[in-house]
């Protein structure tokens, strides 16, 4: 399941579904709204581009790390402290592949998928700065 959506998901159900034949390890990444003295977090995405990008990243990770299953669910809209933002579930035959695939996916998302976060505070809000460059880096291959 690759999705950008407002709704939360049942991570337990996803783990169960990820246990494909041959699975020896499932790694779950659950990015959560942290309590940085904020009231809520607001997320938006350029979905026309972001969804295909997530599908490309999942495909790249599957090929590179021999993954058996990949879920990426990135939530958008207003989220409260403690809510899930991003859920990545991967399964593989061995832990090295599962850990490697999960890490590859989260870093690729942070590097180039057009999604933004705004921290809402009592005094207004602030956009979270990106970790990767300021638009001067190499675009992902799939964007060309």
């Amino acid at each position, binding site marked *: 399941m690759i999705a950008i959506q407002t709704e939360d998901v049942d991570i337990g159900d996803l783990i169960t579904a990820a246990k494909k034949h041959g699975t020896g390890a499932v790694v779950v990444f659950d990015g959560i709204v942290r309590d940085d003295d904020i009231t809520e977090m607001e997320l938006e995405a350029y979905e026309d581009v972001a969804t295909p990008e997530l599908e490309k990243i999942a495909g790249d990770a599957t090929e590179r790390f021999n993954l058996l299953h990949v879920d990426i669910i990135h939530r958008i809209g207003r989220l409260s402290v403690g809510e899930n*933002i991003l859920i990545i579930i991967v399964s593989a035959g061995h832990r090295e592949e599962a850990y490697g695939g999960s890490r590859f996916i989260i870093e690729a998302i*942070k590097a180039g998928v057009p999604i933004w976060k705004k921290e809402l505070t009592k005094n207004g809000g602030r*956009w979270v700065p990106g970790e*990767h*460059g300021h*638009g001067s880096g190499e675009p992902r291959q799939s*964007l*060309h």
Partner: protein
Amino acid sequence: MQFHERNTGEQIMNVKVRFFARFRELLGTELIVEVAERMTLPDLIKQITQKNIEGHQAIFDEHGHFREYVIVMRNARRVDLADAEKNIVADGDDIAVFPPVAGG
């Protein structure tokens, strides 16, 4: 593709321009803009932002160049801003302008 003609016979094209995140707050979510033939991508964005000083300054520097952190996509492909002047917009183009991404 729909072309309109003014009395001058000049062809007018429709281009969709979208802004995201901080740029959306300053300039609006989505615009359908009528543009004349042979307009460059930077000129199109300047035309849209010219009456919005804060929005304009968020995207362009004092020399009228795209700021280093700005990302522009044309029809889901990233535009190399070093060559932005060579980009001539076409009818039906879908342009997106946004600041650095921060997902995850």
